[in-house]
């Protein structure tokens, strides 16, 4: 249930940005969440609907862009398909996750008087 804590951090960050720019409302938040980031997207949305009340995000829409998992060789960059092991077939180096672990706030659309 860390989704609630994540939404709390998100809303605090948005409120700080909105204050700094003298915004009167936030219309839309765009976030990027990896499929293997450890975030349950449905729970994340529910948490947002719960926490946005009485904040500057009260009427904001949450747009979630999900990112599929991608692994690549940390040495030669060759894409690696998860399977028996997470190692490069050609050079046997360990794989590195190059996509799918994101928990990122990309964009805030706010109303400025």
């Amino acid at each position, binding site marked *: 249930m860390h989704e609630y804590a994540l939404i709390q951090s998100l809303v*605090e960050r948005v409120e700080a940005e909105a204050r700094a720019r003298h915004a009167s409302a936030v219309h839309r938040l765009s976030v990027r969440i990896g499929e293997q980031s450890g*975030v349950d997207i449905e729970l994340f949305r529910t948490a947002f609907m719960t926490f946005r009340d009485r904040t500057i995000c009260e009427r904001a829409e949450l747009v979630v862009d999900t990112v599929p998992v991608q692994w690549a060789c940390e040495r030669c960059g060759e894409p690696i398909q998860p399977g028996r*092991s997470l190692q490069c077939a050609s050079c046997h180096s360990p794989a*590195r*996750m190059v996509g799918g672990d994101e928990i*990122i706030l*990309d964009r805030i*659309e706010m109303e*400025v*008087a």
Partner: protein
Amino acid sequence: MCDSCGCGDHELVPVELHEKILAGNDRTAAHNRAHFRAAGVVAINLMGSPGAGKTAVLEATARAMGNRTLAALAGDLATDNDAERLAAAGIAAQSITTGSACHLDAQMVHAAMHATKWRGLDYLFIENVGNLVCPAIYDLGQAANVVALSVTEGEDKPLKYPVMFRAADLVLLTKIDLLPHLPGISLNRIAANLEKVMPKPLFLPVSSLTGEGMAAWSTWLEHRRAAVPNAALVER
């Protein structure tokens, strides 16, 4: 005000951030890490499900590493039980009671550091809240993540909780003294599942009860000191 057409509407401004939602936590974690490195303290974030044997591993570690000074911060939803057990085993321990929070974050660890004599330690173990999901994504400032997985939890736990096991630098397979009573459980199959989710699979079978595997675990911990530049300076 929209001044391009004079419609009287407010202006919609897009603000591009592209920043981690946990950026604030990561900054505090970096601050904790800098403190640990400067003081030559190896901080270990010990995670695992409730009942995986995290506290027992620390009790056994105290027995196996009598030459080192250890302390622990014990995250717990509601009680001080773990800290009391650790204190009885000779490990100075400070509870972090998280209330309803299912994980520790860098700020909780930072606050607990103010209440703990952690400078001058060899190792500070941060025993996270028992949970295989939430703690995985919070950097605390540790030198390494260790996940305790007991052999009674089932062979497929790594596949069910890939985020946690991907974050692990080491997996301790605990309670191996129970293996004779678990004919359906094979260490090889657990290892094969770890390889599917850990790019650098590394695990050690241990028993906190019999002490089996504790020497290998101590050696692994000693090797972590090489990664902490000031650890050698405070070598005793």
